[in-house]
């Protein structure tokens, strides 16, 4: 061999003595050694590539390939460098698309390559929205992962992610981490939303400790998520202070209980609902009910329900005038209605009148009712056989009706 293990060429024979004949053995051996060296791959240390092929030489020199044609992404023997594949290559990121890309390798340089740890970047040459959309695939310890599509351009990024300069989210934002919100501004942050119950803010564990939200009863601050009690401070020096309905009184402890729901329900239970309700206690009106229709009962009004004689309807301030049913008889001031003194008539009668019917000329003795009996004689005795007649009219429902004959 003309070269040692370090690829150093050594002369096969020592120098011959000057001005002497060279032995054939030495000459032939030298020529054969040179021939062998010239036909063997020249080592890199001697300015060669130590390879018998271009690919091997490229590998030996640590260079990267270019324009590698890939027809099967799964079985291709990858060498670092650039590649491309025509549409239809097996295992491409998008079937039917042509790709061009770069292959990275962290394997030691070897030929043939080990192909155990690779990263393949392939850019789609047929994507219609993002030019050269990037797909990445990684091989770790000899196992391929799946192609992963990479985000393409600002437009696509704006459609996917919230801008730090301000943006509007159309979907829900779920924060699962701890201490995942911090706000260092001068104002407190707030949440709002619709419908009711949509905005809710917890401090601490979900549904416990601090709990601020808005529901159908209005805004509520609930420090204790269970009882809704807010404790302001505790200690003997602070007097007890209660706001709202305190269900738990703690001596020498100032606390605010904000229970909007219980508060509203409690006061609602004290009042008669407009939509209809049942009172269990008495209704006392100390003021004056004014207006012609101030008190209207569409249905029946019952006085003294459950009693034998019924209730009493008082009609003056001293209760001296009243109407009452007694044993089935309607009483006024404790006596039957038709009792002397019960009925006070007006100074003049305004709902009964006698209107003029006519003057009838009677020609003979006898009985006549020229007006059908509906008019009566109201005049004095006849003068020249005339008698004056009048009708009796009653004012009923705002109109005058004529009295009938009986």
């Amino acid at each position, binding site marked *: 061999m003309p070269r040692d293990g370090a690829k150093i060429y050594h002369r096969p024979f020592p120098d011959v003595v000057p001005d002497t004949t060279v032995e054939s053995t030495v000459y032939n051996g030298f020529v054969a050694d040179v021939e062998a060296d010239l036909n063997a791959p020249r080592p890199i240390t001697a300015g060669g590539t130590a390879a018998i092929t271009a690919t091997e030489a490229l590998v030996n020199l640590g260079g990267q390939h270019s324009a590698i044609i890939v027809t099967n992404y799964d079985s291709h023997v990858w060498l670092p460098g650039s590649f491309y594949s025509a549409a239809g290559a097996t295992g491409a990121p998008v079937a039917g698309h042509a790709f061009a890309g770069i292959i990275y390798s962290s394997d030691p340089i070897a030929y043939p390559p080990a192909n155990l740890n690779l990263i393949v970047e392939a850019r789609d040459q047929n994507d219609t929205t993002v030019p050269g959309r990037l797909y990445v695939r990684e091989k770790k310890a000899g196992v391929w992962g799946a192609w992963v599509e990479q985000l393409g351009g600002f437009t696509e990024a704006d459609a996917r992610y919230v801008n730090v300069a301000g943006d509007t989210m159309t979907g829900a934002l779920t924060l699962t981490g701890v201490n995942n919100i911090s706000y260092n501004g001068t104002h407190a942050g707030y949440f709002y939303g619709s419908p009711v119950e949509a905005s809710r803010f917890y401090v601490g564990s979900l549904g416990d400790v601090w709990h601020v939200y808005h529901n159908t009863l209005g805004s509520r601050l609930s420090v204790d998520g269970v009882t809704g009690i807010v404790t302001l401070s505790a200690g003997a020096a602070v007097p007890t202070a209660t706001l709202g309905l305190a269900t738990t009184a703690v001596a020498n402890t100032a606390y605010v209980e904000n229970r909007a729901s219980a508060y509203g329900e409690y006061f609602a239970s004290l009042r008669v609902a407009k939509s209809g309700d049942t009172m269990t206690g008495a209704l006392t009106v100390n003021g004056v009910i004014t207006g*012609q*229709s101030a008190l209207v009962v569409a249905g029946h009004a019952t006085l003294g329900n459950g009693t034998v004689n019924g209730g009493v309807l008082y009609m003056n301030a001293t209760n001296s005038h009243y109407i009452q049913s007694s044993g089935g008889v309607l009483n006024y001031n404790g006596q039957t209605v038709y009792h002397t003194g019960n009925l006070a008539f007006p100074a003049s009668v305004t709902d009964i009148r006698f*209107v*003029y*019917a*006519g*003057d*009838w*000329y*009677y*020609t*003979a*003795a006898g009985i006549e009712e*020229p*007006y*059908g009996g*509906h*008019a009566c004689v109201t005049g004095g005795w006849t003068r*020249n*056989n005339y008698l004056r007649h009048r*009708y009796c*009219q*009653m004012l*009923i*429902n*705002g*109109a*005058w*009706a*004529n*009295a*009938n*004959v009986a």
Partner: protein
Amino acid sequence: MKIINHGRWVPYKPSKASGIFPAWVSYFRRESDGQDWYDYIYREDTDDNGRRRVTVRDFLSSAVSIKCAAIFQPAFSAYIIGPAVADVTKLCPINQHVFEVTGYTGSDNPQEYFGGRVFDPAALAIRDRPPPPQPIDPEIAELKKTIENMQAEIAKLVRG
């Protein structure tokens, strides 16, 4: 003056009471078409508070028209005018003609002008009333009756 004849009115008993009055009041209807008198002069509606009320119909409540009723008196063989009023509710036209006079420019007391005069429903005219027949002395009437009885007896005998 223009005279509008509202027809002759007669008593009747309605099958059911009107919405205004109970059944026991006196009801009248027009002889020609059965029109109820109360429905003719009144209407039912509601006031501003939604309460039911009864008002007089406009066409009979004109302040300038005079409403009259006239009853037929055999003594004069004519319709003698009784009430002559502006307020139609004061009429009770049983067995009487009701007519309305527009354009009356007489005295403020139309009763004085129309009362006791004759109403001609055919000619829609108002005339003065003829003098009443002289009252018959009861003794003369008795004598006439006796003569009539004797004449009847004589007639029987003649036929006899």
